[in-house]
């Protein structure tokens, strides 16, 4: 019997979630399952989350360096951008700047510890270092398997890092970090590489892989019994990974006959696949390009990219500003924002970052899709979990794109400091067609954002 792909997915997914059934995001799922199996989405909706560490420059509104204040002057539709976000001026009608929001749990955590929870809203302390599911993964799991990859997870440092110094933004249904990819070449090969030309041989191996995974799960019970408690935890982590890879094997089987997407010569030429952390500008643009291409070819609809993080001197991105000719390392710039001249120094870096975002939005907004552009059906969330360094409130946030998903853009909205940022996530998911009543500690939607 041919099972609907969605049902398979959901079954295996639930198997993978084990005890964590109580996680709030699952409340989002049943209605989606029903809806999508009956009325498959005609046009895609996408999500992209972009993060940088240590916050931004926020000199006082009456300071000499006020033009380097990240947040605009004024409010509503009449706001005025400062120097910092000026590169985004041309996207003004396609974006909203959000002030005041933060994760209530984050406000109680160490100032450098909140990078992990930007997309989750979880509470981490030294007793409980387990995160919860991230926004992007809810979107990835909740959309039917219409793309070859469920999501694209990237960061400069790659891997998962350590809890509270995470090098990934994404966490699965059990709150386990999903390793981020950081080599452009690897990402390219994975998404656009030729793959095995012999699809019969490939099909054989996919089937065999699926048997392998079953086998591993079958006889792991005996193995588990021989282990002490701590080793059991490690084995469980392994087994959860096995269950997850089962899904991607199933997904690959469905996509076996579909050829890999073709890229144009121009698209290839633009990529610098050997770019690395020694050439930040080239690297960031290539990473943005890869997200763009993944969307353009509909290879995935969900992407996260942690551009910089808060691991300070152990992060490869710590030296990014210096390599691009700014005067100090990332952490020092961030710390120096309230020294004389410091707002300007950090502000210029903030602007540099905004330029790259603007480049990414350019690419999305100049690529037609249906009666609009790629950007019209993509929600791009850009921001940090510090306002100024060490301050876990008033996150600097930009939400761009999604005009055709019902977003009402062109404004600077200031929210009450008590409102959980997860409310934003509820609205984002809902606008993407994933009905969601609650995410983490949300108290409702942010209806101001919607037309």
């Amino acid at each position: 019997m041919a099972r609907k792909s969605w049902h398979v997915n959901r079954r295996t997914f639930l198997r993978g979630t084990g005890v964590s059934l109580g996680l709030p995001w699952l409340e989002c799922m049943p209605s989606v399952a029903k809806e999508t199996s009956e009325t498959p989405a005609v046009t895609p909706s996408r999500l992209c989350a972009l993060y940088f560490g240590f916050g931004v420059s926020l000199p006082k509104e009456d300071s000499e360096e006020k033009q380097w204040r990240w947040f605009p002057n004024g409010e509503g539709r009449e706001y005025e951008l400062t120097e910092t976000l000026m590169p985004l001026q041309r996207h003004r009608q396609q974006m909203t700047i959000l002030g005041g929001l933060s994760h209530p749990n984050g406000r109680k955590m160490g100032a450098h510890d909140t990078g992990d929870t930007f997309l989750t809203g979880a509470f981490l302390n030294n007793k409980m270092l387990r995160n919860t599911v991230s926004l992007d993964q809810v979107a990835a799991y909740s959309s039917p398997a219409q793309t070859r990859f469920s999501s694209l997870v990237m960061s400069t440092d790659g891997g998962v890092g350590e809890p509270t110094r995470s090098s990934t933004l994404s966490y699965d249904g059990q709150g386990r970090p999903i390793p981020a990819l950081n080599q452009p070449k690897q990402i390219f090969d994975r998404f656009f590489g030729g793959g095995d030309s012999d699809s019969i041989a490939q099909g054989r191996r996919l089937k065999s892989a699926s048997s392998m995974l079953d086998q591993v799960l079958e006889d792991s019970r005996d193995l588990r019994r021989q282990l002490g408690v701590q080793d059991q935890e490690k084995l469980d982590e392994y087994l959860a990974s096995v269950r997850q890879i089962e899904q991607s094997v199933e997904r690959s089987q469905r996509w076996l006959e579909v050829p890999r997407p073709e890229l144009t010569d121009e698209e290839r030429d633009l990529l610098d696949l050997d770019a690395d952390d020694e050439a930040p500008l080239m690297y960031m643009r290539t990473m943005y390009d890869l997200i763009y291409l993944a969307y353009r070819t509909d290879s995935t609809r969900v992407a996260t990219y942690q551009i910089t993080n808060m691991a300070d001197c152990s992060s490869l991105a710590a030296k990014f500003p210096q390599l691009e000719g700014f005067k100090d390392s990332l952490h020092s710039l961030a710390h120096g924002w309230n020294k004389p001249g410091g707002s300007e120094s950090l502000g210029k870096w903030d602007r540099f970052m905004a330029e790259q975002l603007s480049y990414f939005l350019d690419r999305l907004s100049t690529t037609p899709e249906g009666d609009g552009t790629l950007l019209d059906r993509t929600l791009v969330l850009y921001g940090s979990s510090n306002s100024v360094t060490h301050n876990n409130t008033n996150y600097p946030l930009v939400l761009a794109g999604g005009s055709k998903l019902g977003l009402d853009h062109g404004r600077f909205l200031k929210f009450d400091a008590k409102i959980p940022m997860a409310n934003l996530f509820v609205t984002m998911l809902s606008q993407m067609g994933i009905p969601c009543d609650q995410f983490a500690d949300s108290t409702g939607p942010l209806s101001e954002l919607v037309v």
Partner: protein
Amino acid sequence: MSNKQEASTRSIRSWLAIRLRLGSMMFVLMIIVGGDRLQGEEPVDWETRVRPILAKYCYGCHGPQHSESMVRLDQLSGNLLEDRAAVETWHEVLNAIDAAEMPPADEPQLNETELKTVTTQLREQLKRADDATQKTTGRVVMRRLNRLEYQNTMADLLGIDMDYARDLPPDAISSDGFTNNGQSLQMSAIQLEYYLANARRALDRAIVIEDAPKVIQQEWTESNLNQWLGNAVRANRLERSQEFLATMKEDYPESGDFVIRVTLTAEIDEGQGYPLLEVSLGYRPDTQILMREFDLVEVRSTEEQTFEFRGRLEEYPLPVRGQGKYPGLVVRVRNRFDDRSPRPKEEKVDNKKFYPDEPHLASIDIKKVEFAGPVFEQWPPRSHTGILFESPLRQNDELAYATEVLGRFMNRAYRRPVSVEEVETIVRFFKRVRPDFPTFEGAMIEALSLVLIRPEFLYMMEPSGDEKRPVNQWELASRLSYFLWSTMPDSGLVELAEQQKLANPKIMVEQVQRMLEDPRSDRFFRQFSEQWLQLKNMESVSIHPKLYPDFDERLRDDMKRESISFLKEMIDKNLAPDLFLQSDFAMVNGRLASHYGLEGVIGETFQRVELPSGSYRGGLLGQASFLMANSTGADSHAIRRAVWIRDRILNDAPAPPPPDVPSLEESTPNFHELSVTQQLEIHRQKPSCANCHKNLDAWGVALENFDAVGKWRDEVRRLHRNQEVMLPVESKGELPEGIFLEDIADLQDHLLLNERDAFVQSLVVRLLTYAMGRRLERADQNAVSAISDQVLQKDLGMRDLINELVLSRPFNTK
């Protein structure tokens, strides 16, 4: 709004946060009740010293009468090991005191002694709570092979040399700096996906189905590539501007092992240095990675000689066939020796480009370049017969043969004898997939791949219940092998384990000697130095090109190699650990020697150099690797260097700075004209900073004579608004208990005289942590002390220390 008002608004906000958290605190408490409670009593100091101060200043608002912001400190436990929920609140309290938010400005303030008592106690308690969280009760956790261990294990197991780690996500570094910590090393779906892809990719190469391929051999005595790579000047005599380029346009192999041989002579004048031979293969014009280079070879003789380079074709960027305009498979030979003198201008004669001769450079003269591939000693290759060996069963009984093959393979892959049942599970899988595959080999590759994604292969498993037990012979073999070689045990260790002899102390020590003498121990020297000394941080510092125009990536690499070579020398020669603190020799190559101002060293090779008197390069503190990693890239960073010494050398890391450290130069005019000492003095004027900095600053300030790249200086150069500002070096400082340090000489003396025991303990802790892949705990303290005492009392050397360590109880206990 006045400053004072603003401060109080801020504090209200932060105290509000506590109230908002009460809900989640209840949750934490429930978990603690259900979970394992840690035993412990409220420390005496807390009751007798801290409580009274809190009662005096805090209980008024946060006590029985009032509980401002719903915070009551009188009921909050001071035993943070017992009551984890209190940790967060105390953290908040510490922050509020540090930031001078509490007590509020209009209330009585703590005096300096009281302040010190409270903050020190709090920090200590918080640190203990933190340590307890990391606790694995002295057990080695089932530990995944990290990228390097996986790479080496796959290569040894399959006999196929390829890049297995390429696609694996970077491994997490534990908070104490190690990349082999079982607790930190995680598993994920994407990781597993690449393990499977790797296994198949490698087995596809190891096991062959086709007949022996045709071997292609080529030989060139001069460049034959005229188009492409257009800018290079072709020549046989190679200085820094010429290249030897040989191409195979159509007829070249695309898979299998290859060998390139380069026959050459060299011209080397006395004191000039040695030519650096670089050979590359590739040319993939549609990607950015055109060629892949072999490691540089230093040519140290002028005699004619032949160098051999081997690799696997699939690991190189091969040209795309059918794109006729491209040059084919290209071998490029260059001389990378460069004395950094200005390059001469390119000249043209008869429309041909050339560079004028540079007699001051050591040069290479290419006689002949040869290529052959695919090369093999036998067919099917050893990688094939090693797995699919000859057996009478092979022809007659496929299933019995498969069982035999899997049994042997699994013994090696699991690094122990496997049971019949274990083999049976894999055979079951083989039976299941066999009908889908046209060949026996095809199905076998799948079964072998299954072995390679199983936890018994991917993890170091030491099954046991909750009781501690001695490790068995096989586990011991793996522990030794991953400790000193970062790979699976070799046949020597396996044999001893089979004979149950390995646990014999005498034999174990013999094995350690054998292993340290094997070149594979270089992995240990590199890994341990990198992780212990945090050499990776060197990569996160960007050196200011204007201030240090001479700095380049090769020098960065040399600095790292110095520290690795130093450790190797210490172990090779069984030298006393004291020499890490101060030695009369250094390990340098030509470039690093001139960076240090040492004369008479040439070439790339690292060598032992006796130091002239008055040189401070002997020992870790004079090494550029650490000095540079702990700089800002423009200037020294006294605090980072100090923290590094306290943490890495003395295993006594200071508490991290409280959030929102007030910035140093606020309202201090001409801050950039102040010396580091003066800047820090301003910082110390604030009582909450003074406590920590008192026993911190001097450790780093003593090294002020070393600039950002570890060069000696008598003047500090700073850039201020693009102007260079010169200041005298100030390296004087004072440690607590009135110890004055004039400069690095005093610092080295102080360490040797007063901190020798602490250093040896610290070294033992780091080594044992690395050897076992887990954090140490109180339970291990006895072993650490015992080893350290041995070393100190008997003046043992580094090799002896390692022997003591592998014989210690923790190393032999699961």
